């Protein structure tokens, strides 16, 4: 009798196991890691966790019987801290996918770890185009934007309107170097000249001496290859030193709506930047913003937040189709195979080198008189179609791309 009971129990357990999807640990665990306290915490930070949560809710994970858990962590813009967090997450906490990770030096470090451990890495915050170039892996997708797209958008537009001599003010780490390299290439390809550059420590506070060198170079355009508070301070101090008044123009190569908010329209007006997403572009974006902003102290979502939402949505679709989240390479292959479609970015695709493709937009910051409400900051100058916005597949140097 007892043996019959045991055999039946074993049979039932085995039977149940085969019918359901096999998620590691029974849960899909999403780890959102970014800068929660420093230079980049407004453009990513807690907002990315909120965006991930909204993606899980809109996907209807609970109704489909999928158990999804979201954890967040602060990498403090330090590669060693970020690496430790990711290792602990994967080894101890059984996290299946790492999302966001601004600060390219951290992203590049995490890129290697995730490949070695065969999990998934969806980069929304970081910019270095090397992630889909020489450093590409079968476990990483670079979602929202990259330094090549920024250079191609902002750089090309400015050179075409006459800004043909450039001086770079660069953040002295991986991101700044990548952005400077890609923009310099675009400038020279379109007939311009790079007359000089200076690298400032990251993060910086006082840029007056570097701006003075930029002023002495007499370049028409001062390209700011930095982001977050560094860009904000560079722009404020440039205006203080009469740089913009005396005929030189600033090119904010990477700027977010949170930067414009911190600068105020009086200082930021006329700035040209390239972004992948803006909250006021269409009704779907506005609706998302209405739900997002109250959860994040009224801060409106940046393209990084929108990218996290889109990436998590597509990831969940892929995992649902595969019925498993264990093999990172398989999930990413599925994500590349399925075309993307979400309410924020519309239809798009993920290329073989891990690059997500969508249109990029060239924006100009409005004058104070043109803005009707807080956060109404951008006017659309041009739309760069998806097939032109990102570096051509063959030019990246990614080993995954068969030439």
């Amino acid at each position, binding site marked *: 009798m007892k043996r019959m009971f045991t055999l039946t129990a074993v049979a039932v357990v085995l039977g149940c196991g085969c019918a359901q999807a096999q998620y590691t640990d029974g849960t899909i665990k999403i780890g959102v890691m970014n800068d929660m306290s420093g*230079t980049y915490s407004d453009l990513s930070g807690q907002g990315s966790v909120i965006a991930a949560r909204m993606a899980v809710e809109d996907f209807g994970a609970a109704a489909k019987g999928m158990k999804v858990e979201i954890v967040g962590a602060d990498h403090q813009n330090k590669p060693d801290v970020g690496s430790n967090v990711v290792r602990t997450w994967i080894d101890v906490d059984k996290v299946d996918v790492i999302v966001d990770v601004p600060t390219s030096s951290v992203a590049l470090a995490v890129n290697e770890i995730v490949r070695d451990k065969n999990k998934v890495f969806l980069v929304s915050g970081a910019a270095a185009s090397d992630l889909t170039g020489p450093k590409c892996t079968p476990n990483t997708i670079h979602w929202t934007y990259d330094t090549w797209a920024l250079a191609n958008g902002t750089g090309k537009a400015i050179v075409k309107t006459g800004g043909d001599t450039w001086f770079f003010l660069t953040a002295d780490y991986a991101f700044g170097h990548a952005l400077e390299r890609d923009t310099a290439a675009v400038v020279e390809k379109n007939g311009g000249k790079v007359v000089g550059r200076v690298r400032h420590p990251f993060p910086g506070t006082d840029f*007056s001496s570097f701006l003075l060198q930029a002023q002495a170079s007499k370049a028409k355009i001062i390209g700011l290859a930095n982001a977050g508070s560094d860009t904000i301070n560079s722009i404020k101090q440039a205006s203080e030193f009469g740089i913009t008044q005396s005929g030189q123009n600033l090119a904010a190569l990477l700027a977010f709506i949170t930067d414009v908010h*911190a600068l*105020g329209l009086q200082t930021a007006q006329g700035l040209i930047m390239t972004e992948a997403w803006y909250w006021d572009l269409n009704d779907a974006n506005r609706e998302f913003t209405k739900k997002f902003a109250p959860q994040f102290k009224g801060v409106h979502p940046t393209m990084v937040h929108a990218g996290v939402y889109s990436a998590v949505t597509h990831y969940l679709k892929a995992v649902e189709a595969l019925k498993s989240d264990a093999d990172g390479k398989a999930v990413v292959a599925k994500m590349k195979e399925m075309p993307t479609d979400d309410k924020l970015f519309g239809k798009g695709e993920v290329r073989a080198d891990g690059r997500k493709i969508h249109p990029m937009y060239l924006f100009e910051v409005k004058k104070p008189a043109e803005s009707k409400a807080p956060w109404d900051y951008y006017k659309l100058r041009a739309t760069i179609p998806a097939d032109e916005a990102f570096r051509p597949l063959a030019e990246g140097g990614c080993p995954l791309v068969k030439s």
Partner: protein
Amino acid sequence: MFELFGISSQALFGQLLIGLINGSFYALLSLGLAVIFGMLNIINFAHGAQYMLGAFAAYFLLQYAGLGYWWAILLAPIVVGITGIIIERLFLQWLYKLDHLYGLLLTFGLALIFEGTFRNFFGSSGLPYSVPPALQGGQNLGFMFLPNYRGWVVVFSLAVCLTTWFVIERTKLGSYLRAATENPALVRAFGINVPRMITLTYGFGVALAALAGVMAAPIYNVSPQMGANLIIVVFAVVVIGGMGSIMGAIVTGFGLGLIEGLTKVFFPEASNTVIFIIMAIVLLIRPAGLFGRSA
């Protein structure tokens, strides 16, 4: 004009002037720290947070009370100084007899609390604060364009630093203060209210930090992080100048600002670390600092 190592003299003078301006912030902040350590033997790690509080106080005065920069220069140090006095009465007074480390830990914890609270409410991108209309614009000095506000910063910091040094080193009140630090019991026996002097001294040191914060608000970002980035450098300045020496803090502050300015011209990537390299060298040669008195 002449050329030095490939940099024209014009650019060089411009950078030196910028270095002097940065140096005045270092001098003001390290003065507050030196006063607090010299008089109270407390390593005030909350100094950076109090600098940040001064800048935020200026922002609040403008936003909610409509009081501009000139009011803020007067009121913000007083308000933040009062919070300093409260901290001293509530927490610090119990730590004087203990090891320096306890004061350091307490003030460090307070700094984290202040910064975390403000970051929670105000984010990290910072808040705008504009240069007061009277000081806008600038002078074209030929070798560079000097914003009027930055010129004012140098002049005013120098004035505050020298006044403080004069009061502490050359007046009767200052001599009471110095005596009270050396031998509190004896000074109390003379009928001087030592605990009150100590409280007010801490408040004064904190007020100096807040004053630096108000002056920084128009040119640096008013953000919760502004103190954290600066405080480590300021500690290095104080150590180089000599922990208890007022004149040392002032001279070293301006001097290191100049050296950092030069480094930004010739080797910009090292500009963050040059002050610490100098600190290491100075400590090897003169452990008490350049102007310090060995205990």
